[in-house]
């Protein structure tokens, strides 16, 4: 049982890393960015690409983080910012993000092929013992890395000047401009953070399962999105809790009910929680328009 718990926590942390990307962008734009799953797959492929060039796993991940962050900035700059400028309806941006998801996925197929490709294991030293608990080193690595990253993200949003400006833009764009904040740069920075965390999530999961494929982001993206909604989209720690709930329940479902049921569990939990608390576990009342 403890094995399922650890597996679920590791998986959940990765969902959390993807979920914060949904949450951050939703916070500043009130937009569900459906390209995020594909961006995660892009991050995994970039890591694979640089590993293939013999860069070593860690440098490969760092390159992937930077490139994926930039990809997210470009997505905003060329497809979403022009829509904002024209003050178009939210639904146009939503459809655009779905379109971009497929464009990225197809480009990955063209350049990397649609087959499943092997990815080297990261930090694989078999089992290690921490505080009397025996845990796979790969799981430990995922847990530690994502915890550190989520802590950094939370710190940036809560305690830095750029984080304060993100919260200002989230609450009132007009007033934020009147304070001299360049709203578009804040939005771009937010996309960069989202892209970077998706790249890390993509690399971690690829190292864990040791495979990479172009539409790996579809299900992971949907589950992370439900994790974000489950926790209350727009609330950072909500996404983390949501991710853990989804990861752990999925892991137990796979063990108790069999692998074919694992994917449905996240959504069943989501629906049940929303029935009782439509804003999600930690959601704010005023944020309702998904």
């Amino acid at each position, binding site marked *: 049982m403890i094995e399922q718990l650890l597996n679920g926590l590791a998986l959940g942390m990765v969902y959390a890393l993807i979920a914060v990307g949904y949450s951050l962008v939703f916070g500043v734009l009130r937009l569900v960015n459906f390209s995020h799953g594909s961006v995660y797959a892009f991050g995994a492929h970039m890591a694979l690409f640089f590993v293939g060039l013999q860069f070593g796993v860690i440098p490969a991940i760092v390159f992937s983080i930077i490139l994926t962050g930039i990809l997210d900035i470009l997505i905003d700059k060329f497809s979403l910012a022009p829509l904002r400028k024209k003050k178009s309806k939210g639904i146009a941006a939503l459809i655009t993000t779905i379109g971009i998801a497929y464009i990225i996925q197809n480009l990955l197929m063209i350049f990397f092929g649609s087959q499943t490709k092997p990815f080297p294991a990261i930090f694989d030293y078999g089992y290690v013992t921490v505080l009397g608990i025996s845990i796979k080193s790969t799981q430990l690595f995922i847990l530690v890395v994502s915890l550190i990253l989520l802590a950094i993200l939370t710190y940036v949003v809560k305690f830095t000047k750029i984080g*304060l*400006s993100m*919260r200002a833009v989230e*609450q009132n764009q007009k007033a*934020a*401009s*009147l*304070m*001299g904040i*360049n709203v578009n740069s804040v939005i771009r920075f937010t996309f960069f953070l989202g892209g970077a965390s998706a790249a890390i999530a993509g690399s971690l999961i690829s190292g864990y399962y040791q495979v990479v494929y172009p539409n790996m982001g579809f299900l992971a993206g949907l589950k992370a999105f439900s994790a974000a909604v489950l926790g209350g989209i727009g609330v950072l720690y909500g996404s983390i809790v949501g991710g853990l709930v989804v990861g752990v329940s999925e892991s137990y479902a796979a063990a108790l009910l069999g692998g074919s049921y694992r994917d449905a569990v996240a959504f069943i939990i989501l629906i049940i929680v929303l029935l009782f608390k439509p804003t999600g576990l930690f959601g704010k009342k005023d944020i309702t328009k998904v």
Partner: protein
Amino acid sequence: MLVVKDLNTHYGNIHALKGIDLEVKEGEIVSLIGSNGAGKSTTLLTITGLLKATRGQVSFKGKDITHASSSDIVHMGLSLAPEGREVFPALTVQENLQLGAYTKKDKASIKESYDRVYDLFPRLYERKKQTAGTMSGGEQQMLAIGRALMTEPKLLMLDEPSLGLAPNLVLLIFDMIQTINKQGTTVLLVEQNANMALSISNRGYVLEIGKVTLSDEAKALSENDKVRKAYLGNIDH
């Protein structure tokens, strides 16, 4: 200090400003009065760069700012406390003020700005840890003005600062505006409460459906029959 020439602004097909000319000189308090929908807020929003002028020119301290970004304009020392307060509701009073100082780097002068604002509005100091959305309307108005002052404006524009406030608070706000002006900040004031606005102003402009129809010394305007009939709500004053 601020010179506006032939300013035109559109909302889509709606021609909201049809050639506004006005000027604010250093040290003055200037009032902009006019009935609902005359274009007062639109004028202020266009000056700050939040709305784009379709024709005409705005210059501030001798520089053309017609096409400058709002953040550059704030940085140059022109600040607006917008209609309806527009505080950041989920942030604390202090965080709201901190955002006012967003473009400032010099720690010492930011500290001075805090002192000045807390000095003017002790109530804000008492409530600095409170989230802005839970404050009363009057307190939020103080915060909106305080936040605009944190940008260290040379010219402060206030859009209906007395809107929805109890009479004693209105008096307090007008008192503050005069104090702020005496401390060296030039003020452009938009008000429904034309009587009081003119009483503290040097000069005034009357706006009607997107045009300036009258401009004069404040005293002369408040004695003008047309103005008294239309905006002061009282002929035999």
